[in-house]
């Protein structure tokens, strides 16, 4: 019994020590964000003096060259449509893959699985050229299109796996009553799929919000830059302005963190369902 108590104690110490190590960088950036530069330049862990201030957040929000207010607005403008459109398009296709028979179905499906593994570097040069040719380079619409296409494979895979778990009897009954495929999909299947759709929304929104690479390639006008693109610009010219940078990172981080806290269950279900089924 005594040995068991000691083991339990040890496990608790290890667990909380790891938790402490994991939280320290976030704690540091938080401390740097809420205090003036002079107090943190020798280390944020010196807490005397400790003068809380909003100045870093305001400095990042209204930054002279890369205001985050504009960046976050742009990020919402891109992330909201780039979440809804691919989910709609991919869910419809996923239903086709789970219910219909058509030639080459398995080959098409496996191609889509393979597309999930492709690195973005493999597509950005031609995409840059396509966007230039059709006049969508440096527009949010162009970026939304690319995010839409890029999100389709995993959402399709995820939703197909979900649809195959739904009982088919209801759909067959509706079909006998004369309902069309579209009616069945939109009025019966989609309402039953709301939990899976929420998971897809959470993951896709965070993916687009957190994306940096595609935005870096496709958007370059200063007023159109997304939030993530402005983070490196907050650094300051001659020395790293940790205060403003920390304030900015917290503002940009806050959006995915709030979503995660509110919808954690769906996020984790989505992540597990998408990778392992």
């Amino acid at each position: 019994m005594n040995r068991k108590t000691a083991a339990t104690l040890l496990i608790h110490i290890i667990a909380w020590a790891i938790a402490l190590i994991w939280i320290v960088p976030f704690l540091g950036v938080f401390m740097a964000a809420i205090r003036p530069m002079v107090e943190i330049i020798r280390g944020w862990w010196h807490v005397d003096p400790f003068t809380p201030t909003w100045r870093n957040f305001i400095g990042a929000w209204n930054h002279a060259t890369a205001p985050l207010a504009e960046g976050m607005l742009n990020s919402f403008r891109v992330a909201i449509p780039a979440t809804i459109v691919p989910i709609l398009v991919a869910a419809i296709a996923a239903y086709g893959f789970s219910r219909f028979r058509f030639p080459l179905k398995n080959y098409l499906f496996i191609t889509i699985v393979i597309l999930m593994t492709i690195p973005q570097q493999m597509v950005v040069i031609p995409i840059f050229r396509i966007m230039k040719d059709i006049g969508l380079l440096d527009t949010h619409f162009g970026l939304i299109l690319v995010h839409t296409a890029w999100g389709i494979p995993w959402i399709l895979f995820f939703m197909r796996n979900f649809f195959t778990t739904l009982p088919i009897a209801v759909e067959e009954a509706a079909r006998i009553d004369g309902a069309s495929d579209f009616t069945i999909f939109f009025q019966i299947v989609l309402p039953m799929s709301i939990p899976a759709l929420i998971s897809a929304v959470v993951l896709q929104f965070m993916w687009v919000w957190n994306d940096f690479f595609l935005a870096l390639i496709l958007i370059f006008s200063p007023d159109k830059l997304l939030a993530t693109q402005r983070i490196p610009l907050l650094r300051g010219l001659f020395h790293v302005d940790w205060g403003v940078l920390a304030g900015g990172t917290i503002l940009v981080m806050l959006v995915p963190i709030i979503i995660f806290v509110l919808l954690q269950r769906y996020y984790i279900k989505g992540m597990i369902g998408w990778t392992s089924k």
Partner: protein
Amino acid sequence: MKQKLSRSLFLIPALALLSIFVVYPVVNTLYLSFLSPEGKFVFLSNYADLLTRREIINPRGFARGFAFGALPHNLLWTLIHLPLTVFFGLLLAVILRHVKGGVIIKSVIFLGMVTPMIIGGVLLRFIFDGRAGIVPVVLSIFNVAPRTLTAHPDTALIALILGSVWIWAGFSMVLYSAGLETIPKELYEAAQIDGATPRHIFFKITIPMLKPITTVVVTMTLLWNLRIFDIVYAATMGGPGGATNVLALQMFFYAFRRLEFNSAAVVATILMLLAMVAATPMIRSAWRESR
């Protein structure tokens, strides 16, 4: 006939978008990688040329220290990051089941996964900073002179790799936690009745039962290691002196700084091939399951 038409409407929008913005670009990049800058078809000679470049593989680096080149850096990244990710993920998943407040600790650890990677890079630059960062201060307890670890070639890459474990460990932890829930309790009870030691139970039941999860964790972590870009971009830009350069970043430099599109296409293709090798188990199981 009418049904066929309406049913194909389910697939057409998705397949059209994929064809234009994913499949065509992939084929096009592959083709570009076979062309000389003048547009002549030279097949693999770009690859031969690239693999001798110092920024890709730097043989002198192996004797003199960093930089080794982007390709060895990615390999080193994987060699260090993958085992640590699997280890920490499994360890945390197992012990946090028995710890008071384990759910809170899990959420804290998972924060790294939710954070944009570009911010992950900023955070790493911050914790390794010689003046404002905490890691050099902790190291100074062990008589290491404080300096910005990401600004020196001998420590920069290792610092970023270890930092990326901090960012990514939440992923494997969450997957392993979910996997542990699926192991039937009766298995453990039966083993206990048979007098198995906890160690025995762990290695003979838990680990084998988690094998499918391990496959997923390893695959996704390998893919993530190949894609490393934002972290390095924000923390070091591949510096100092190329010591933290990685393939994805080098591709970006080739394509959008030096406008060497063919070299960039070669790097991208190498990345894709490595990704496909890494994802083979996942692709194979999806194939088996879809038939």
